[in-house]
């Protein structure tokens, strides 16, 4: 129950943060990516704010609490920068630049309908396609997924 509440609260804050930061507006994203044109550094400030809070907090939490530390997980975390990472990031970035949406903002904006619904649908299909295609290669357990995601 505690995790449901913390997850709910986290999701609420995330959604609020996305809207307040303006990251739910595709034009703001594309503006940030428009290095050769009228550059909009807003996303940079978002990252500074987010990382500014999380970086020290994570370091502190990791030191003081060992319960959720990923290194206590039996499986070693993925550290290699491999082809899948590069290709994945490239594909992701391409799609991101095309529509100006990534999963968070798209889902947060789902109530506004129209374009966003199409994007969310396609994102879900894209995720499903990948996970279905690679299902047999991965040992998909919750613990393992958490460890993978923890190094993401």
């Amino acid at each position, binding site marked *: 129950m505690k995790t449901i509440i913390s997850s709910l609260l986290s999701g609420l804050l995330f959604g609020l*943060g996305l809207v307040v930061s303006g990251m739910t507006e595709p034009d703001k994203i594309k503006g940030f990516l428009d290095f050769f044109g009228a550059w909009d550094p807003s996303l940079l400030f978002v990252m500074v704010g987010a990382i500014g809070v*999380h970086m020290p907090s994570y370091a502190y939490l990791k030191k003081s609490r060992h319960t959720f530390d990923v290194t206590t997980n039996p499986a070693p975390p993925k550290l290699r920068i491999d082809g899948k990472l590069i290709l994945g*990031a490239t594909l992701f970035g391409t799609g991101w630049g095309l529509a100006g949406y990534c999963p*968070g903002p798209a889902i947060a904006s789902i109530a506004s309908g129209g374009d966003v619904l199409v994007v969310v649908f396609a994102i879900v299909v894209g995720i499903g396609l990948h996970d279905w295609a690679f299902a047999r290669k991965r040992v998909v357990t919750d613990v393992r997924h958490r460890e993978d995601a923890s190094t993401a």
Partner: protein
Amino acid sequence: MNLSVFLGPLVGGILLGISVTLLYAFEGRVAGISGIVAGLMRPKSSEWPSRVAFILGLVVAGTLAGIAFATPQAQGSTSTIPVLLAAGLLVGFGARLGNGCTSGHGICGISRWNPRSIVATVVFILAGALVVGLVRHGLGGPS
């Protein structure tokens, strides 16, 4: 340049930072939206309720905040359906292949000094910049 225009982004970013810190503090989880959605699409596990709660919070807050902080929307759609579909497919598939997206790699991974995340973030920003550059300046016409 009026710096106050970056107050929203900064405050929003701080809220995002608090959000992901909360998730880590109470659940040891990386707030990678792509990963959370992917988890929802797998057979139900003990983490399912938490994932649902997060996505629910995301949608509720996004909706309410969207109404409260309503900004002038662009007139109509600026992209065709095929482009939107392609974009979504690339984002979804790419995020899973690369094991993270802007929240997972960009915020959480970088905050943890994870080299994979730093590389991934640089790569997807460059890829996005290339696409925007081509669409806005290379191929001609507004995006």
